[in-house]
């Protein structure tokens, strides 16, 4: 208000005495601001403070004011009123708290009730204050300060001490009526500024890194935890270390060890220089190791580029873990006979599809999924043998042929079943293996590698020579199981049947006459081609009577190694002699013509029976071995 008035006044004032008036006004304003907000004029008695040290009693102190202005000694009265009182009451005790004070003992004190006190003499009220006791708590200072030595540093320069004290005796901390917080301050004797520690609730606190040879002063103040103001300071504790320091030798602080740094730094630098100068290359190698170019161990990528596939194959074959992938373009040429009814099939299918596809493939595609290389159709569930001619390609693409073989075999089986109905002859060796072969081919999900190894170890999706009953009957074996394809381009067939179509179809099932060795490794998921060949070797001499499939011929039987093994093991003894009387038939027959869609006319060239050596080799046939066999 006054400021506004003065400003307005300033603005209206003529320019004459501007500066002085401005200064005067400013002085007034400043003086105004510094006046206490309580409207008591200067020199009048006023209540300085009301304080409770422990929240059980409280006292109020006032000043007399400027006595000189008043002639008669005044009889000051402090009147108080609690909420709920009707009238002002006089102070009960003017004495205990000292002069110009009023003391309220426990009986007069109620904690959370508002009080109003007023300072007055008979006529005039000088000052009035309202408060409640919980707001005016200022604890007494702590007592009994002392300290104990914690430890001295190794250098003997720094000292840690533990300072202890006791809470003020008036405050009832034990019963929890008052909860106190303490703040410790310390300084060196000749300093002026006190250092403060964080307030703590405990009655002890450590002081770290005091210097030997100096003297310190410590004091503590306390407050109620929830208030802001601290009470009085305690007595100052005097801590002296100067007397002990005379015997200490190291008076000075440790200098930064420049000398050591210089020496060691120089040594290190020299070493590094030596390294750099005399072994540049090695250092370079250490710092920037060359990134090795990716390459197959043992194979020169140039070979692949140049197309020297035989060498590549030989290299690859030398690795046991490799199937000799025959990337011979020539081979493919022979196989591809593009005479497919469905033009779509041609464009999408793989080569093997083209080779072996027939009209059924399309119609029996699994859920209409066409065969493409996406692998989407790979997990088609075989529903029924007829319908499930899914043109799926599994992970390694052998299922196509599986499918083709399967369907053909299924059909054959069905055909055979008609014939077999009356013939209950059941040979364990044939049927399980046979059926498993079929079921194995049904199962295009599981064991493609297994199927692979069963049917043929050749890397090229083996061509199934199982022809449908529609295939033309030609001069030689209508169905022959392809067991391998040589790098030269010839198809390795297992001995096939020489009978007519119908019987040949059935006989196809007899082909898997198991002549299994008992040296199957039971836990090996991959069966040696040779071993399995024996299991399912065509027994030409065997009758083509239909074999009753004793085992449940349903699509759900999956070809398991165990089953094969068991079946393999079972007939091992039975068919020993059977296999021995087997007529030697050519294992390798080159393909003469590829009849579409499932026909493969084979050359009648007889090839030497492979050696035992060939048979023995488990796993994959190396090209060396093949080369030995082949001319």
């Amino acid at each position, binding site marked *: 208000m006054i400021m506004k008035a003065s400003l307005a006044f300033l603005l209206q004032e003529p320019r004459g005495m501007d500066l002085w008036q401005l200064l005067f006004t400013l002085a007034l304003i400043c003086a105004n601001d510094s006046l206490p907000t309580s409207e008591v004029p200067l020199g009048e008695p006023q209540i300085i403070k009301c304080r409770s040290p422990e929240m059980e009693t409280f006292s109020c102190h006032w000043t007399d004011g400027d006595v000189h202005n008043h002639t008669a000694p005044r009889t000051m009265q402090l009147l108080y009123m609690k909420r709920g009182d009707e009238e002002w009451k006089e102070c009960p005790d003017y004495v205990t708290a000292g002069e110009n004070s009023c003391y309220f003992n426990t009986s007069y004190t109620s904690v959370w*009730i508002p009080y109003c006190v007023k300072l007055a003499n008979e006529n005039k009220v000088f000052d009035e204050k309202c408060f409640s006791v*919980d707001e005016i708590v200022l604890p007494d200072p702590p007592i009994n300060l002392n300290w104990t030595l914690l430890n001295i540093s190794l250098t003997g320069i720094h000292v840690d001490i533990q300072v202890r004290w006791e809470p003020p005796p008036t405050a009832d901390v034990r019963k929890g009526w008052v909860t106190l917080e303490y703040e410790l301050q310390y300084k060196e004797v000749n300093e002026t500024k006190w250092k403060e520690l964080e307030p703590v609730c405990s009655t002890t606190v450590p002081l770290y890194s005091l210097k030997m040879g100096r003297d310190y002063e410590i004091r503590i103040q306390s407050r109620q935890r*929830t208030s802001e103001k601290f009470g009085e300071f305690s007595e100052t504790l005097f801590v002296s270390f100067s007397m002990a320091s005379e015997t200490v030798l190291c008076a000075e602080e440790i200098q930064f060890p420049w000398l050591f740094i210089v020496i060691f730094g120089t040594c290190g630098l020299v070493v590094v220089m030596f390294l750099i100068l005399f072994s540049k290359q090695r250092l370079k190698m250490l710092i920037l190791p060359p990134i090795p170019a990716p390459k197959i161990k043992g194979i020169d990528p140039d070979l692949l580029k140049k197309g020297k596939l035989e060498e590549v194959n030989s290299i690859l074959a030398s690795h046991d873990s490799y199937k000799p992938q025959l990337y011979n373009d020539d081979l493919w040429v022979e196989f591809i006979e593009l005479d497919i009814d469905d033009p779509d099939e041609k464009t999408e299918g793989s080569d093997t599809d083209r080779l072996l596809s027939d009209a059924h493939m399309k119609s029996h595609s699994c859920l209409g999924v066409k065969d493409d290389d996406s692998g989407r159709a790979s997990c088609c569930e075989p529903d029924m043998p007829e319908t499930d001619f899914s043109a799926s390609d599994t992970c390694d693409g052998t299922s196509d042929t599986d499918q083709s073989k399967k369907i053909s075999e299924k059909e054959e089986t069905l055909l055979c079943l008609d014939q077999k109905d009356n013939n209950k002859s059941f040979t364990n060796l044939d049927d399980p293996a046979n059926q498993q072969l079929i079921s194995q081919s049904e199962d295009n999900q599981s064991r493609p590698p297994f199927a692979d190894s069963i049917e043929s170890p050749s890397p090229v999706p083996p061509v199934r020579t199982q022809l449908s009953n529609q295939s033309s009957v030609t001069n030689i074996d209508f169905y022959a199981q392809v067991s391998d394809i040589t790098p030269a381009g010839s198809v390795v067939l297992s001995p096939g049947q020489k009978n007519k179509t119908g019987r040949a179809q059935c006989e196809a099932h007899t082909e898997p006459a198991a002549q299994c060795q008992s040296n199957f490794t039971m836990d090996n998921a991959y069966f040696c081609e040779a071993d399995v060949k024996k299991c399912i070797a065509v027994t030409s001499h065997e009758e083509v009577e239909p074999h009753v499939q004793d085992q449940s011929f349903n699509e759900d039987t999956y070809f398991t190694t165990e089953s094969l093994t068991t079946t393999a093991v079972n007939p091992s003894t039975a068919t020993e002699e059977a296999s021995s009387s087997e007529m030697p038939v050519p294992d390798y027959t080159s393909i003469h013509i590829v009849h579409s869609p499932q026909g493969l006319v084979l050359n009648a060239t007889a090839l030497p029976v492979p050696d035992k050596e060939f048979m023995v080799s488990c796993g994959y046939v190396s090209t060396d071995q093949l080369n030995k066999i082949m001319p």
Partner: protein
Amino acid sequence: MPHMITTMNNKGASLKGVLLVFLLISNMFLTKKSVTSLPICPSGSVNCQVSLGELFDRAVKLSHYIHFLSSEMFNEFDERYAQGRGFITKAVNGCHTASLTTPEDKEQAQQIHHEDLLNLVLGVLRSWNDPLLHLVTEVQRIKEAPNTILWKAAEIEEQNKRLLEGMEKIVGRVQPGDTGNEVYSRWSGLPSLQLADEDSRLFAFYNLLHCLRRDSHKIDNYLKLLKCRLIHDSNC
């Protein structure tokens, strides 16, 4: 004679046996009784792992925090809105919790039974549920209310609920099975917080915050007192 002695011996042995069994059974019953007299986990309690001391520690921490926030909020409000309006000199109106007779000094607090004091604390806490809720909403309508005040109001309201839960747990432990009548004071000060006249409205806020600070201090003190009495055996 020897026959009699043996029979007597037998009888003595059987007597001993009976006595032993009796002792065992009585011991069983006695220990069982002593266990039941100090229930650590009364039936129906979900969380049985926290000790009473820990519960009290948490409660004291919460009450301390609430009082701290209330003090600060009151001081802020006082600084910002109450200066020059003479709120201080006016006799502060009574708080709505005045109907709950709480101990006003140390002697009274010491004489009151701890179960009664706990129930009083619960009553005060419950009485503040409603006002705090409205405080949070109404304080936002104050012209240019600083964020700190708004945040503190919300925080106090939430912590109060938590403290209430904790106290109910403690009461459940200390006096199991005693649901007690839920005594609390109803608050009817909402209209005053919504007055059109700004001065009157701000005075209503001032009053409410003053009461809040006071009551939170009361609760804090009572809980500390109870903690020292029950957990530390009056030797904090």
